[in-house]
């Protein structure tokens, strides 16, 4: 069985496989978050989506999220698979599996993981509508840019 805990794939995600990665005799709960493609966003109809990832960095960021979770909730196991490429309405874009001895921590850690994915994992979504397309960014309006304005370097290469 594939035991890579963090994956970017271009095929449909096997939910059961992601779940199996966090099965543990110490667990009393396994919580699965399944992120799916929504048809309507603020009244606008999506036809389909395309996801793109900077895969090697995305995997590193998944590992960082896992480390952060381990610091907060040491008994949690986590596995994440995100899909890229063309996705239709209701297709599964991401699966986050978390196991824990007790359920409350599993809910907390799973929500933490999806929040952090939206902040630090380099994956982009392109929306296809009836009247056009757009790469979507900054859905949370809390993209972690460095504090302050970077120095302006225009003219440096003139």
């Amino acid at each position, binding site marked *: 069985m594939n035991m890579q805990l963090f994956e970017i794939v271009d095929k449909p995600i096997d939910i059961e496989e992601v779940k199996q990665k966090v099965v543990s005799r110490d667990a009393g709960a396994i919580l699965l978050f399944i*992120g799916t493609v929504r048809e309507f966003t603020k009244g606008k109809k999506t036809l389909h989506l395309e*996801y*793109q*990832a*900077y895969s*090697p*960095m*995305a995997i*590193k960021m998944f590992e960082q999220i896992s480390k952060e979770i381990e610091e907060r909730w040491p008994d949690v196991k986590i596995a994440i698979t*995100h899909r890229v490429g063309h996705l239709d309405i209701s297709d599964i*874009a*991401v699966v986050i599996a978390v196991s824990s001895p007790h359920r409350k921590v599993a809910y907390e850690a799973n929500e933490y993981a*999806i929040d952090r*994915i*939206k*902040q*630090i*994992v*380099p*994956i*982009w*979504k*392109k929306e296809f509508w009836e009247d056009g397309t757009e*790469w*979507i*960014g*900054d*859905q949370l309006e809390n*993209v*972690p*840019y*460095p504090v302050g*304005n*970077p*120095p*302006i*370097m*225009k*003219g*440096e*290469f*003139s």
Partner: protein
Amino acid sequence: MIHILLFAHLQEAIGEAELRVNLSDYTVGQIKGWMEKQYPMLSFQQMMAAVNEEFATDEMIVNDGDTLAFIPPISGG
């Protein structure tokens, strides 16, 4: 020589996923300025960047052989 990786709208606007340029030993911020000169329709100043798959500040130096990725606002999940 450094590698510059482009994603999402940057990749579509420039028409390339990767650039190889002679900008070793410049800072990330300086390279952002260079990109804006090459591609005046694009803005890089507020954009996140990563050097060798780690988030980088504008002050970080990009060395020969490094990979600099520009990270537009992300929308995964």
